């Protein structure tokens, strides 16, 4: 995998006349993890949404490999976002949800075996014909994780990825994160849970 960089320069965000952060700089390279910390309402999710391109920063720029991210199809192809809302359709089955996510992500080849392996990996094997509304909150999170397994893009942006997961689920997502870094990918995430990633280069930014 090529070397990628995600660079933010002098970012600031104002929400409802409240300055959440200003002059925020960071550069993230391959195999690094950026953990955003801060109390509720400190602007972690706003920052992630700026990094996704949903929101324009009130000042500053975000660049992916030297190119501005806004309107860049390449950036969207290189990035996977997992937010508070998991984007799972309740009426569709687990398998249909995954297939649709893959079609959207422009994955060249995701054969049935790869999907089965990913489901097995997140311990949802045998659930493929189950409509998603029958899944528990934790199982829905696992389904989102399956999307990460299937689409190993260079940049993951994860907003509270451990919510609703049990201990094994948390261990599994930490393992997936470690693999992502070993592959040469990078991760930006927010979490109130202590990250257990011993062998990776974790940077922290505290928003206040």
């Amino acid at each position: 995998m090529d070397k990628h960089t995600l660079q933010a320069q002098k970012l600031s965000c104002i929400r409802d006349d409240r300055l959440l952060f200003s002059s925020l700089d960071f550069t993230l390279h391959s195999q690094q993890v950026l953990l955003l910390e801060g109390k509720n309402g400190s602007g972690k999710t706003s920052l992630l949404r700026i990094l996704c391109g949903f929101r324009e920063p009130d000042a500053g720029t975000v660049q992916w490999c030297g190119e501005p991210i806004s309107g860049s199809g390449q950036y969207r192809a290189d990035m996977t976002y997992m937010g508070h809302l998991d984007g799972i359709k309740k009426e569709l089955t687990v398998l249909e949800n995954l297939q649709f996510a893959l079609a959207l992500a422009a994955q060249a080849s995701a054969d049935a075996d790869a999907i089965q392996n990913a489901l097995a990996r997140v311990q949802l094997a045998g659930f493929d014909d189950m409509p998603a509304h029958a899944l528990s909150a934790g199982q829905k999170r696992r389904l989102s994780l399956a999307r990460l397994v299937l689409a190993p893009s260079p940049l993951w942006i994860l907003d509270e990825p451990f919510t609703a997961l049990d201990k094994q689920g948390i261990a599994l997502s930490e393992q997936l994160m470690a693999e992502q870094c070993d592959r040469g990918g990078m991760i930006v995430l927010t979490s109130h849970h202590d990250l257990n990633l011993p062998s990776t280069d974790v940077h922290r930014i505290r928003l206040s």
Partner: protein
Amino acid sequence: MSLSAAFFAIIRRDLLLALRRRSEIANPLFFFVLVITLFPLGVGAKPHLLQAIAPGIIWVSALLAAMLSLDSLFRSDFDDGSLEQLLLSPHPPSLLVLGKVLAHWLVTGLPLLLIAPLLAVLLGMPGQSLGVLLLTLLLGTPVLSLLGAIGVALTVGLRRGGMILSLLVLPLYVPVLIFASNAVEMAGSGLPIDAQLNILMAMLCMALVLTPWPTVAALKMSLN
């Protein structure tokens, strides 16, 4: 290749979703049938009057039914986060949105088209205007869906956007209503209707090409 795959995947998904929650198809259709069947009861036994206002009745009902169905276009995708994932796809979001609108039309607009001849006969519409009615519906209802998509995209983030949505969208619907019902009326009297059909066709082409961009821009605003 993968772009068309994504385009058809989104249409397929939305049709599948509509199939699994059928009330979404049934509601606008039920409304359409109900309004039109109530008119003869309200107007009374005056076949000539009914025949004269039939094009207007059918088109106004179709327009209101289309507006009634608009909210479901992006609502559930907005609520469960699918919309975020849609806009993060590397494919051009305007095409994906076009796919969604097309699927929405197949679910809410096409059924109106299929039932309209029956209702036209109920109102005593002359045989020669039936074909024109179908043609205007075929050209006009997709325009309603495409224009409506901009309005829904603007209001989907609001908790009670229904009223604003109708205020936003209705003025844009009026030209379609005027030209379409006029064409049906003219056809009933055996007059040429090329001009009206050409204008409707032009509206459809313009809407197909021009509405997806503002829809995407409005969706991005609503996601903030």
